[in-house]
């Protein structure tokens, strides 16, 4: 008896049966979808921050404390954008695609048990419902690819169909092992059956499911649909505004859903000690999602034929064998004692080693040393970076000191020293120094000095040409203007400007200048 049914039974005492049925359903739908969207926002935040740390960056940290408002800011930005429909595209297909892509992902949550009683509908065929619903999303993707009338998105759409259909097979087969052990299709009974989490009893099934699930939700290394380096953004290349937001949400909702399914089927659902079950469930979901973006930040993408080959030649036979082995085990040990996990882990390891031998890379058999060892090595490298200090600088607050010789964005002109010889103007390769002089009592007087810093190369040749130390590079590095003519600096501005001389060409100035900030300072300094 879940919470929803209790609510219904209570209402049924007062209201007609149709209302007592409808109202709790609507309320629960509203609550559930709000919750999911909130979690999705957190997902987006966690992923961006997490990937940042894997890449020794900080990740978004400006909007709100620790950047937690970044997803909100993104949402506001996306929603205020112009909604574009390609003029040559198929209008209705284009419009409907994001909706069709989004709702199946949302609908999966109907049968996810967040806790024993917190489930929208405890279907007795819950897992079957998930399989059926989750394969609908590809229709939206295909419609988007087709309706946009764009070659990139069409390529993406074709890839989507091929990929989804292929990976559905091992995905379903890998669940079969779980079903044999638990003896039920209902999500709650599967969780209740897990005294030992199934990823221990079904290591191979878990691995296959995880990989196939990553492919289902198009996460790296299976993100061929939106492969930025190849087909730019794939099927959603022509989308903007709210429709793009729906695709974006669909992607993360699907990631959440798949993580939740992994947790339910293999990681013992809400089971856990001390903390409440729902909390355990969410912790596990975030761990699974963390693993997904950990993989994402490590691996490059497969090619489309390799992707298909991997599904059909590797995952599919292994999943079949796994079902077979599990079935035999269920006959011999109907109770599935926990000791079986040792045997199963051994079998899984053996199968992976054997199977990797069947694979060919560039015509040569992959040696036995390579059953994913390289991938695991890569994963350790990215993981170790999680604990390193980010190297990026919080710019406006934290400024780097440029080198004493830094060639900054303005020249420093010493009017008193200048003899108006025009050596600087002659040395300038791009002729941006405009200088006019008249004859005075003691040599030339500079009447006009104008430098166009919009065209200046900052090559420093004018400074080197000056015979009397009247021209210096500046150490400033912040200058921006909205108008090009503001970059033309006149004599008066030169005189009035703050004289932040650079030691360029005059190394004797270096002594009094602050040390340059270095990413790798010399040993005695660090």
């Amino acid at each position: 008896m879940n919470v929803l049914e209790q609510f219904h039974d209570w209402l049924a005492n007062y209201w007609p049966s149709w209302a007592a049925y409808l109202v709790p359903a609507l309320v629960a739908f509203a609550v559930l979808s709000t919750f999911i969207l909130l979690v999705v926002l957190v997902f987006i935040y966690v992923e961006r921050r997490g990937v940042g740390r894997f890449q020794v960056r900080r990740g978004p940290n400006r909007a709100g404390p620790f950047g937690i408002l970044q997803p909100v800011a993104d949402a506001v930005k996306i929603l205020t954008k112009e909604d574009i429909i390609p003029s040559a595209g198929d209008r209705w297909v284009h419009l409907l695609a994001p909706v069709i892509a989004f709702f199946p992902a949302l609908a999966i949550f109907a049968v996810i048990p967040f806790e024993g009683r917190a489930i929208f509908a405890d279907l007795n065929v819950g897992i079957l419902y998930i399989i059926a619903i989750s394969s609908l999303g590809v229709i939206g993707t295909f419609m988007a690819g087709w309706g946009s009338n764009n070659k990139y998105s069409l390529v993406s759409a074709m890839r989507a169909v091929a990929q989804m259909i292929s990976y559905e097979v091992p995905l379903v087969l890998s669940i079969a092992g779980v079903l044999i052990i638990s003896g039920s299709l209902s999500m709650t009974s599967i969780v209740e059956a897990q005294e030992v989490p199934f990823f221990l009893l079904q290591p191979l099934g878990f691995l296959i499911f995880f990989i196939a699930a990553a492919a289902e939700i198009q996460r790296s290394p299976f993100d061929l649909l939106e492969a930025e380096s190849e087909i730019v953004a794939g099927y959603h290349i022509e989308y903007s505004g709210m429709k793009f937001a729906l695709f974006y949400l669909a992607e993360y909702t699907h990631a959440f859903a798949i993580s939740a399914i992994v947790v339910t089927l293999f990681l013992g659902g809400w089971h856990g000690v001390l903390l409440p079950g729902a909390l355990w469930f969410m912790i596990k979901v975030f761990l699974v999602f963390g693993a997904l973006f950990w993989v994402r930040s490590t691996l490059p993408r497969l090619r489309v034929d390799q992707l298909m080959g991997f599904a059909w030649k590797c995952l599919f036979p292994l999943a079949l064998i796994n079902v077979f082995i599990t079935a035999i085990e269920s006959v011999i040990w109907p109770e599935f004692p926990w000791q079986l996990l040792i045997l199963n882990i051994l079998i899984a390891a053996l199968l992976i080693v054997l199977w990797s031998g069947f694979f060919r890379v560039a015509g040569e058999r992959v040696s036995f040393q390579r059953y994913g060892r390289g991938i695991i090595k890569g994963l350790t490298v990215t993981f170790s970076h999680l604990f390193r200090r980010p190297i990026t600088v919080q710019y406006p607050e934290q400024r780097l000191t440029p080198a004493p010789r830094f060639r900054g964005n303005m020249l420093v002109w010493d009017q008193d020293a200048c003899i108006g010889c025009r050596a600087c103007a002659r040395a300038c390769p791009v002729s941006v120094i405009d200088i006019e002089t008249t004859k005075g009592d003691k040599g030339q007087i500079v009447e006009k000095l104008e430098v166009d810093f919009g065209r200046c190369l900052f090559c420093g040749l004018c400074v080197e040409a000056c015979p009397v130390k009247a021209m210096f590079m500046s150490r400033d590095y912040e200058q921006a203007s909205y108008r090009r003519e503001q970059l033309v600096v006149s004599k008066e501005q030169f005189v009035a400007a703050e004289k932040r001389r650079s030691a360029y060409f005059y190394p004797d100035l270096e002594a009094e200048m602050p040390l340059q900030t270095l990413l790798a300072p010399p040993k005695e300094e660090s």
Partner: protein
Amino acid sequence: MALKTEPVMINFGPQHPSTHGVFRMRVTFDGEVIVELEPVFGYLHRGIEKLAEAKTYTQVIPYTDRLDYLASMSNNFAYVLAVEKLAEIEVPERAQYLRVIMAELMRIASHLMAVGAFFNDLGAFFTPFMYMFREREKILDLFEMVCGQRLTYNYMRIGGVSHDIPERFLPALMRFIDEMPGFIEEYDWLLAENEIVLARTKGVGVLPADKAINASISGPMLRASGVKWDIRRADPYSVYDRFDFETPVGLRGDTYDRYWVRIQEMRQSTHIVKQAMQQLPAGEVRSKVPATLRPPKGEAYAHIESPRGELGFYLVSDNSPRPYRFKVRAPSLINLTVLRDLCLGWKLADAIAILGSIDIVLAEVDR
């Protein structure tokens, strides 16, 4: 049932995340397989070769920065070598060593960028790119310390270099050179044995040695095809004959080998920098050169091993302060000529990987 299919033409670029600038490929696909590829370039043509004819010999140096902007030091180097050959100018020892140190650091920085961008093209989510940028940033710090700029250095001068190095430079360089092999090791852990990387790169876009030589390919791309040709060894310039280093060569000439050769070259470069630091003599860094240089009538060609291949400058002097003719042998452009042959028959994703492994800089291709 036989389905009627027809090839489809897709335009990659000039604005595309993986064309490394404004390069365009008109690719015709049969499904995902490339049946025709036509490279289109020239979007970044600025006429530098013509512009240089109106500049004095010294004024051209900042322009060479803007050819291959990922290896400005190497460009400076090749150009000043050509002028020195033309005007027969002696360069002080110390300057020679400084030039070698800078050129080798530049090679490391450029290869880091090349490999990082290559893995982005393979679809890694910026992680190798960020790691390699971290090390590149350290090199840029060093360059900034020496010459005041991080990208367009304008450091080398005819007859030497513009500045001597500051005091703090050598300890900082020492620290970097000590650290670097560890980081290269880390890249290997991350990438070299990764099954997906192997599957994506091994055997893809094979360039046989004879074809490479016929197409006048140079640099890491040629060496990946198994030809041991390195101008630092084949025609030693500056003081390269005094260093002990190896020339790594690939076996097959596939995309993986091109990546592998670059990684090995970074190792060798750190080795060269170390030796150069130990041997660095004291003394002047710039010989006396007249302010307006008028080389005698004649012509000169100087070439160096830039990170991308044989970078050559051909100069003709008519005894005026400006070059009569200024021609760049741009390795990126010549390496790019085999793109079509490498890509035909491969898949869409491979074309991107192959282009990434050629490592072009459009500013140098178009000039």
